[in-house]
């Protein structure tokens, strides 16, 4: 199941590439808009990287289940003998591997470009590792819930973004603390707790959404 999705995304590599390029481009727009003040950019670097990662991760969510619903593949997957929640979890894992992981790789150069201190980069990657996991879980849940709804693509960010704000707050705060020489561990632990809570809850909710979608 997971292998099938990964194979699909290899064949449709443009989706992953689009998300990563969006991430890099959106991040590069900030220096252009704010002016080339290194001090200002360094202050904002963590927030910019985090917000851009959040938005870039939303891009492919629309198609996560939508493509399968349209061509009837979702029916077949629902009849594969797996609980819907397990199916949803596999899809979320595929989303993370094809979107979260590439974003993680692109985050380090973007952070350095914005003048993030070198010491804060490991914390940035650590926080984004947990953060992209949480985003895949929350985004997958939102995608399953809006599945089959008209204008679901518009509804999706409205549903996913408010739920993702705790991850954004703790993640950006951890990187900020590390950049300022403060203790970043509490924020990262809170972010980890948030991801750990999303891990069992989101697939269950998404499974219910999938069941409703194929009815």
């Amino acid at each position: 199941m997971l292998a099938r999705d990964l194979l699909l995304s290899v064949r449709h590599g443009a989706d992953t590439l689009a998300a990563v390029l969006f991430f890099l481009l959106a991040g590069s727009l900030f220096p252009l808009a704010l002016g080339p003040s290194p001090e200002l950019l360094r202050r904002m670097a963590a927030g910019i990287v985090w917000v851009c990662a959040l938005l870039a991760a939303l891009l492919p969510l629309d198609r996560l289940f939508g493509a399968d619903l349209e061509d009837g593949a979702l029916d077949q997957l629902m009849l594969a003998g797996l609980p819907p929640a397990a199916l949803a979890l596999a899809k979320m894992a595929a989303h993370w591997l094809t979107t979260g992981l590439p974003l993680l790789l692109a985050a380090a150069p973007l952070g350095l470009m914005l003048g993030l201190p070198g010491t804060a980069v490991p914390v940035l990657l650590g926080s984004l590792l947990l953060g992209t996991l949480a985003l895949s879980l929350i985004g997958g849940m939102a995608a399953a819930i809006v599945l089959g709804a008209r204008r679901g693509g518009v509804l999706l960010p409205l549903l996913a973004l408010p739920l993702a704000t705790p991850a954004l707050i703790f993640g950006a705060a951890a990187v900020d603390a590390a950049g300022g020489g403060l203790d970043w561990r509490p924020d990262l632990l809170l972010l980890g707790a948030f991801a750990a809570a999303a891990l069992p809850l989101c697939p269950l909710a998404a499974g219910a959404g999938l069941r409703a979608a194929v009815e």
Partner: protein
Amino acid sequence: MTATAAALALIVRATGLVVLRGDRLVLDGIDLALAPGAALLLTGRNGAGKSTLLRTLAGLCPLAAGTVTWDGVDVRDEPSRHALRIAYLGHQDALKPGLTLAENLRLAVRLGGGDLPAALAAHGLEGLAGLPVRLLSAGQRRRAALARVLLTGAPLWLLDEPSLGLDAAAQGRLGVVLATHRAAGGMVVASTHVGLPLPDAARLALGKQGQDAALDPLGPRAPNPDS
């Protein structure tokens, strides 16, 4: 006594199925029963509920009332087991255009343990396994979806307009595949507008007029062909 024996041979039994789609009553009090080797053709006008009945038997549509049992056990009590006992073919072929035919059917091979070359050959698709599905014609895609049904190795086939887009030769092959499946004790429920190569299949007419004539294979109106 004979009636009891016949009832014991039945595997799938649906009683008093009522299905609502939104506010609309689509199926109202449908009864059906299937013994090994049985075939049931669903007929009725567009919107009569043929597809809904197939999806309901697959466990995809929720029941407002009634039960579907398999060997006497309500299928809702064991959804994962039931999913592996059925092969569902919907309107759409559920094939990814970017993947090759073999890659598309890999999940079904993994689940059902079927023989991919044999299944492809049964539908005349040998030699196309390595081709991306986007290069296949509509009829070839339909045959690929039928090959997936064969690969699942499931005893109950639920086919929604299986012959859509098939040429005469492909229909002939479908007839052979269906006959082989039934000879091995498999069951088929299929909806159709154009007739299917299913000799001596029982018929169930859906829709406002047809519902009273709901099929009972034990009754005199539609004798079970294999009993």
